[in-house]
Each structure stands twice: as structure tokens, then as C-alpha cells.
């Protein structure tokens, strides 16, 4: 259990993840009395601003075209996640997303208790990801419920609200969906859903700016090539080679785990600008 919280970034991140859960619970228990904070991960109301999931809003715009209701505060809220992704990368996925938290718990149990080897290794090229995103957008536009079946953070937050309200038929339905996705995910080596399928994650990854927050391998410090970071990476990336970090969601696990040649001289670090 100690491993689960070990490290500066990992500990902060766990606090964020647990904090998100408690925050939403607090919102749901007080939602009758206030309208300042309301909503789920599909759309969250923060004061007047309606922050919306980029994928949900893009399908909404595509579905309604000229009839779309372009409410100023919703459009503002649509830009906020994109701006955060532009500057800090996919921090939403690693620091806030409840599905990621759920999966990390299961992943921890899987590797530390059952010690089963992952089965299938899957890799997708950036081009095939774009093709899938275009397909997902088209499906979302022509089949209105489609995004709500595959976006896990939104589904989990709606589920939490139904738990507060004791609406069990909905809970059963969405729980089956979530278990189905988890089941698929557990058969693949490291997170097929978050890396290749979740359309919101793909959009946030594309909105990312190369100069924003990212993991770098410093050239002035020597790397032992122990590859601990690559073993520990929750997404199955290889930070010790210092390449293809476009999938990286800035969780900071590799920075925590990195052991340099001398103390406090770890070659892996966060860089901003």
C-alpha cells in the first residue's frame, strides 16, 4: 500500500484524485441548496461558467449545426479544458479523471497481489488515432447516445449522483458499462482505453502544445539506463529512452521513481516552457 502513495508527485496526485471524489460528493449532497457548483464530468457549472467536455460539445455542435444554442458561458467553458491541455498537457486524465483513479487502483492490485502478466500488447499510430477520433465524432453526431456510452469520467460522476439519490436501475446499467470497459482494459498491456479509445483524452492530447508542461530527459545528467521509469509508467511508455512522450499524461510517476547516478541528480524532470 505504501507504494501507492510513494513519491512527491504521486502523493500530491493521489490527494487530487481523492479530493475530486470528495468534492463531487459534497456537490451532490448540497446541490438542492446552491446552484454555484453543479454538474458532472460531461459539463460542470462553476459560477456562471459551464465547463463542458470538448468531445461532448463538438458532437453537440455537429448534431445541431445552425440550430445550436451558442450560450456565451458554455462556449467559454468549452475553451477552458482546451487551454489547460494546451499549457499543461493531459493533466486532467492523470490528476482528476475518476476512471483513471479506478483503473490505477485495479492496476496496483493486479501487479502487486495477483502478479499476472498482461496479455495483449497494442500500439496505435498517431494517424490511426486521428482516424478513430473522426469516426467517434461521426458516430457521436449521428447516434446521440454514443458518447455517453464510452466516456467513463462522465458516466462515473453521474453514477455517483444516482448513488446519492438511490436510483438503482440507472446504477446497475452504468455499472455494467463501466465493468465492461474495465474488463476490456485488464486484458491489454497498460491502458488501451485511456491511450487510444477515450475521445476526450485524444482531443486533449491533440490540443497539447509542445512547449507546455512535459517530461524531459536532461542531457547534462547521466542516466543509469535502469529503465525503472519504464517499468513503472502507468501508460507503458519508455521515458528512459527519452522519446515518444506525446501519449504521456504528466502524472510524474517516472520523475518520482527515477534514481540518478548521484543523489538529487535525477535525469528525468518536468519542464514548463
Amino acid at each position: 500500500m505504501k507504494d501507492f502513495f510513494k513519491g512527491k508527485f504521486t502523493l500530491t496526485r493521489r490527494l487530487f484524485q481523492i479530493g475530486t471524489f470528495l468534492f463531487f460528493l459534497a456537490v451532490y449532497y448540497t446541490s438542492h441548496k446552491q446552484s454555484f457548483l453543479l454538474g458532472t464530468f460531461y459539463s460542470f457549472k462553476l459560477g456562471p461558467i459551464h465547463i463542458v467536455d470538448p468531445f461532448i460539445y463538438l458532437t453537440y455542435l455537429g448534431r445541431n449545426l445552425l440550430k445550436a444554442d451558442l450560450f456565451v458561458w458554455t462556449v467559454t467553458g468549452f475553451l477552458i479544458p482546451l487551454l489547460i491541455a494546451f499549457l499543461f498537457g493531459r493533466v486532467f486524465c492523470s490528476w482528476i479523471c475518476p476512471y483513471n483513479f479506478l483503473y490505477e487502483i485495479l492496476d496496483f492490485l493486479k501487479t502487486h497481489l495477483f502478479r499476472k502478466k498482461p496479455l495483449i500488447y497494442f500500439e496505435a499510430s498517431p494517424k490511426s488515432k486521428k482516424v478513430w477520433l473522426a469516426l467517434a465524432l461521426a458516430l457521436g453526431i449521428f447516434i446521440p447516445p454514443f458518447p455517453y456510452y464510452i466516456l467513463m469520467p462522465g458516466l462515473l460522476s453521474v453514477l455517483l449522483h444516482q448513488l446519492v439519490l438511490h436510483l438503482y436501475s440507472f446504477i446497475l446499467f452504468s455499472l455494467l458499462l463501466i465493468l465492461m470497459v474495465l474488463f476490456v482494459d485488464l486484458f491489454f498491456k497498460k491502458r488501451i482505453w485511456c491511450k487510444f479509445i477515450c475521445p476526450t483524452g485524444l482531443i486533449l492530447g491533440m490540443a497539447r502544445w509542445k512547449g507546455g508542461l512535459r517530461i524531459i530527459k536532461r542531457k547534462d545528467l547521466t542516466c543509469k539506463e535502469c529503465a525503472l521509469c519504464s517499468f513503472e509508467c502507468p501508460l507503458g511508455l519508455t521515458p528512459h529512452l527519452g522519446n515518444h512522450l506525446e501519449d504521456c499524461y504528466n502524472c510524474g510517476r517516472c520523475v518520482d521513481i527515477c534514481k540518478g547516478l548521484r543523489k538529487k541528480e535525477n535525469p528525468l524532470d518536468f519542464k514548463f516552457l
Partner: protein
Amino acid sequence: MFKTKFLRPPGAVKESEFVKKCIRCGKCQQICPYNSIVLTSWENPFYFGLPYIIARKKPCYLCMKCPPVCPSGALDRTLVDKNKVKMGIARINRDTCWAYQGSFCRACFMNCPIFDKALKMTDELLPVVIEKYCVGCGICENVCPVEPSAIIVEPLKD
């Protein structure tokens, strides 16, 4: 097989547009002080996550708190007057309604929020729905003592 007629929250745009416009964020359900609004799941998987009201269990009490929190225009944000709501129209089943069977019952008339306008008692005995004023909140359906309810709100067609 699947349920297709749903009573939508107050201020909803017409059904075919509502399915497209609602982003299913659940804010209307969260702000509802009576927990009247529920989300679709098994009733019709194609409408998964869309909000609706089961009037017999809990009707809409027309507090008008949900339209202003809608982010996508599925509920008309500017709607504040409960008299202008149009969710559906109540229909009385004269074969089961107690008043039409000769008993003295005015449960629906006494509880109608658009009092003495949407529901009128002819000769102080028989309830009649005035379609022009009925908002379709479902309170009459909720309070009807007959099982199943002798007055049922039909959601508006497109």
C-alpha cells in the same frame, strides 16, 4: 418494447430537438429540490441519460429552478413564468374517474397549480381539462386516488 413517450422537465424544446440538444450533464436533476427528475437507462437505452419525470411517482412542482442551469439550450433558459410551461396535456379517463362514476372527488382540481384555469369543475362536480392552460406538470396524475391514475399527462408530440 421500449418506452418512447417521456415527460420532459419544464421548458424543454420539442422532443426531436431535445434528444439532439440535451448533453445529459444531469444539472437539472441535481438542482431539482423534489428529486422529480430521473435519468433514462433500461427504459430505452437509445435515450440513455436523458432526464424525464415519472408523474405518478413524483410530479413537477413548477419551482422553475432547472431551466436556468441548462448549458445547452435543451431547456429554455429564459423561462421563469410557470404559466407558460408546456410539458404535456392531462387527459381524464372518464370510465374510471370517480367523479364521472358518481362519487364526490375533486383531488385533481384542488391540487392543480394553475388553479381554476387548467382544470375546471363543470356544475361543481365533473373535472374538465382546459388544454389551453394545462402545463402538464403531472400533479393531478400524482394525487389521483384511482389506481391506475384516471388522469394521465400525455407528453407533447413534436
